[in-house]
């Protein structure tokens, strides 16, 4: 790599067009008697931000570590641009990963931490200063990393991930410890990064962040894939209508007959899922029930997620 490496560096591993950046096929991981991941298959594509969602303990971190060659799967395989991580010729120039906040010697300065990692990948030392500026750590660069705040540690981790100008970013709960400005900065950065044709896989259990960040969602629960879909589809499926009517009982029965899920709340309003407003309005008309209010409530990602993972628990 030349000294001026930001733009025209020789291409590293380049996947054929349309092929996944990350591919996990039939992965199962058992730690003793605990099965952390069960027969999981998923794909992450370039050009979009993919959210990796699931409650704590769902197997997200284990899956990411399997992709990164840190954990060996019991069964199945994971590849990055078609190759196992350990076989990548230039791993840091292919994938940048932030797995946890505390992953540095606290007695080494942030700058030296990055210089150590740059050396290991043959990355020129001047790139370290570029990255420190990019993540906003120049001022603290020469301080021991042990003195950093949680947000600064996250930035240092992100800096390490960006050292090799990778084409794939993997981030495990990156928003932990970031302030609102930091989260916005990260969001803009990741969206811009993906827009250049790069791939991003971000795990989170805080779903509200994901609604604004991710394009694709992969939902897992208890080690199993629950759903892989565009994020807007995830929210659409659990769209809910609130219907206000003086004859709630009759309308509920009519909807129920047609296989539409209905629940009555304490105020006597109906909560309808699985049908849009036009259909419910028409059914009310056919049944001769007056409708005083009809509100379409787009549920939050949180609700969609809870629904999906609850389904799995049943």
């Amino acid at each position, binding site marked *: 790599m030349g000294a001026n490496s930001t733009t025209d560096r020789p291409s590293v591993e380049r996947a054929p067009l349309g092929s996944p950046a990350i591919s996990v096929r039939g992965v199962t991981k058992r730690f003793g008697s605990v099965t952390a991941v069960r027969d999981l298959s998923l794909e992450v594509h370039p050009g979009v931000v993919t959210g990796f969602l699931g409650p704590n303990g769902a197997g997200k971190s*284990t899956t990411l570590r399997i992709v990164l*060659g840190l*954990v060996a799967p019991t069964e199945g395989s994971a590849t990055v641009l078609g190759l196992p991580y350990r076989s990548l010729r230039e791993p840091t120039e292919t994938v940048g990963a932030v797995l946890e906040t505390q992953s540095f010697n606290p007695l080494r300065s942030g700058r030296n931490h990055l210089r150590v990692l740059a050396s290991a990948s*043959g990355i020129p030392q001047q790139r370290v200063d570029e990255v420190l500026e990019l993540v906003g750590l120049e001022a603290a660069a020469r301080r021991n990393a042990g003195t950093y705040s949680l947000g600064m540690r996250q930035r240092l981790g992100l800096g390490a991930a960006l050292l090799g100008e990778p084409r794939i970013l993997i981030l495990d709960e990156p928003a932990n410890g970031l302030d609102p400005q930091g989260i916005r900065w990260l969001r803009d950065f990741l969206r811009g990064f993906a827009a250049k044709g790069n791939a991003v896989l971000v795990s989170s259990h805080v779903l509200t962040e994901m609604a604004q960040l991710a394009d694709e969602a992969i939902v897992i629960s208890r080690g199993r894939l629950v759903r892989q879909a565009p994020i807007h589809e995830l929210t659409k499926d659990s769209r809910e209508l609130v219907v206000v009517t003086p004859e709630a009982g009759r309308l509920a029965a009519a909807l129920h007959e047609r296989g539409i899920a209905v629940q009555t709340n304490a105020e006597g309003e109906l909560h309808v899922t699985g049908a849009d407003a036009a259909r419910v309005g028409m059914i009310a008309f056919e049944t001769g029930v007056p409708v005083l209010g009809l509100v379409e409530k787009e549920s939050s990602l949180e609700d969609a997620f809870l629904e999906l993972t609850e389904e799995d628990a049943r």
Partner: protein
Amino acid sequence: MRKQVASEIRKLTTTRSIYAMLAGLIVIVGLGVVATTTDGQPGSLLAPLEHQVFLHVSLTIAPLFGLLLGLRSFTDEFRYGSIVPTLLASPVRRRVLGAKLVATAGGGVALSFAAMAISIAVGVPILVIKGFDVAWSTGAMAEIVGRLVVATVLWTAIGVGLGLAVKHQVAAIAGTLVWLLAAEGILSGLVPDVAKYFPGAAGFATVGINSAELLTPALGAMLLGAYALVAVTTGAVLMQRRDIA
């Protein structure tokens, strides 16, 4: 592996701990030399430099520090979690192990020379002040330094291998020290016939201390090398399979 070695050397030189170790070595060796040259037994001070008892201080302490340096190489990374970025940058694990062996061996050489230099810098002026003639054989001195370097480097490799196998820093360091400072001595009393084949005894044989009861330096070095090979191989096999979770 060249890049990994560069990275490991940078790791060694960018925290204070290596300099703290060097400072500790200098202080301990310096005080040890003062103690052995001023203990009121002037007889041995008549000997040529290569036979001076005060050299035993560095011959004992430098290998011990080499061992600690080796033990810390992997256990620091496991302790602080920096093993994760290390393995992300260098996913071929045996390369990381190889680089750590090379870098800590370099540290071992530096510790050996520092210990010898401080011994002579403190010991010789004391001899001169006490009015003894200082004579030496350059060949014999070179041999002593050479043995010390070999022993210290092998101890760093033993430390790297053990640290990798045990993973837990306190357990690795405490376990090793308990073996060397207590267990080996006790076992030597129980089974005196095999005592000279124990690691600590092999280490002393390598540097040529108490050579009457021990193996020759060459055999000692070979035995110590065998221990290093076993420790490194054990670490390597465990590392290859270990999940970094």
